[in-house]
């Protein structure tokens, strides 16, 4: 009898607690809808160039993406890559602790913010680079994944929706990985190696980074025939409209934009002289040598100089040897009339800028795509 009444009491108590919890949760949801309802907010982009009506409460980055304005972001809005910077002229909240380390004094003065950390809670005015307004999100199908070296693959992607892309050779896209092994989706930037004339496809070169979330997905999970998502075109790395002789310098997957630019200028009947220094460790790190050597034989304006820094002295390699910076310094003692186009690791770019400026090239004539 006593045990029975205890069980009934426990049952009633548990039931009461459950009901109270459910009612409280319901009240919280209702309160959030009523109290935290920011209504519809207006995002004014570039002084009225676009005016977007969005539901309040979301992040600026996602609100813009829902309206087909794709700000570059590598971390998917987690506040770790600092790529999604925009100017918030009006309506931005206080700088969040997540943003603090990423904003320099000049950026703070210019009201630059990480768009993933700015909440749209009222009307907001922003400024973004004009070229970002033409960036689109694409769905494509991986046609081929071709190994170029032991750690670099070339992806050829057919566009499904939209079916065509317009871009200038040298620009990049943001490829989105899928979730795998507990890793969230991430976006990573890869330069297009394809030519703008092939509007239905893009080609990318992806180098495997140890423990890299996106590159591991590309190498180990992405299969031919699979759908992929990317946004683009992004970036400012493209040829200038001058007649200056060109020095291209690249290493590893930094080949991608240069390969695209070279094929593009060949198609367009280029006459600008160009010398391409491609740095690698050993012969097994080289690729597209036959294609670039063939291009050198076909046209008078192009010279290709692959250079190896770690090739065994007794190997059959007949080309240039040494660090790419030393090789450039040897071949180009006077760069005062040249323009430099660099793509590679930050260390390589820093060192190459020093070599080129020492040889007389002014910094405003050095263009680069740094992997940072």
């Amino acid at each position, binding site marked *: 009898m006593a045990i029975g009444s205890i069980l009934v009491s426990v049952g009633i108590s548990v039931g009461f607690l459950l009901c109270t919890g459910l009612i409280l949760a319901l009240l919280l949801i209702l309160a959030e809808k009523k109290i935290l309802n920011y209504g519809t907010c207006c995002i004014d982009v570039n002084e009225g160039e676009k005016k977007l009506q969005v539901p309040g409460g979301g992040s600026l980055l996602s609100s813009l993406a829902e309206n087909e304005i794709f700000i570059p972001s590598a971390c998917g809005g*987690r506040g*770790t*890559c600092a790529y999604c910077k925009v100017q918030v002229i009006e309506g931005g909240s206080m700088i969040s602790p997540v943003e603090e*380390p990423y904003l320099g004094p000049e950026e703070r003065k210019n009201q630059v913010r990480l768009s993933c950390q700015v909440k749209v809670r009222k009307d907001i005015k922003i400024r973004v680079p004009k070229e970002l307004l033409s960036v689109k999100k694409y769905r494509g199908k991986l046609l081929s994944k071709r190994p170029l070296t032991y750690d670099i693959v070339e992806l050829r992607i057919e566009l499904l929706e939209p079916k065509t892309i317009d871009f200038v050779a040298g620009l990049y896209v943001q490829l989105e990985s899928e979730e795998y092994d507990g890793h969230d989706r991430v976006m990573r930037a890869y330069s297009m190696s394809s030519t703008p004339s092939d509007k239905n496809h893009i080609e990318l070169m992806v180098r495997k*980074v140890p423990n890299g979330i996106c590159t591991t997905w590309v190498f180990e999970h992405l299969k031919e025939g699979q759908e992929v998502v990317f946004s683009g075109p992004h970036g400012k790395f493209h040829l200038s409209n001058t007649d200056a002789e060109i020095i291209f310098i690249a290493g590893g997957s930094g080949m991608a934009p240069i390969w695209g630019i070279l094929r593009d200028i060949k198609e367009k009947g280029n006459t600008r002289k160009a010398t391409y220094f491609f740095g690698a460790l050993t012969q097994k790190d080289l690729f597209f040598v036959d294609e670039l050597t063939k291009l050198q034989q076909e046209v008078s304006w192009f010279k290709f100089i692959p250079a190896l820094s770690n090739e065994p002295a007794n190997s059959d390699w007949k080309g240039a040897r040494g660090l790419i910076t030393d090789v450039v310094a040897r071949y180009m003692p006077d760069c005062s009339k040249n323009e430099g186009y660099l793509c590679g690791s*930050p*260390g390589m770019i820093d060192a190459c800028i020093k070599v080129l400026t020492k040889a007389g090239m002014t910094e405003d004539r050095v263009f680069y795509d740094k992997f*940072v």
Partner: protein
Amino acid sequence: MKLSPEEQRLIHNLKSSKFSKEGFLGTDSRSLEEIITDDLRTLGKAGVPKELLVQALKDAYQKARNTFGAEIEIKKNVKAVFHESMGRIPSPFCKDGLFEKGEVVVTDSANNLSLIITSLGINLIEKHDFFQGRGCRFRIDPVVAIKIFKLLPGR
């Protein structure tokens, strides 16, 4: 003891967070203060000034970074190679700056020891006396570092 908002943020940032998937404490059950005190004591017992260790780390990092991925010998039986990586990572300490994500793997084949040096890791030791927790991939264990770089007391 009540922690200031800044201290709370630091503790949050040191664990697996937006800043670092792995976090900075690894599997270490000690507090930040204990890790710092123990590692400084280890350095002190060995008679090696922190500045000397930091300089050795900086030299190894820079030498490897300058060879664009080629493995180099920085001391007898000690090799270093730079692995580039896209992006930057902020320090878990507030307003401490952004650091490139590239890492230098140092291996001492004679003693079968290895270390991973990053620009953030060097900064954490130099500015905050923080060598990172045990079990953390990027921990610079003072004992291991002293052996690898063959650092001598007081020099």
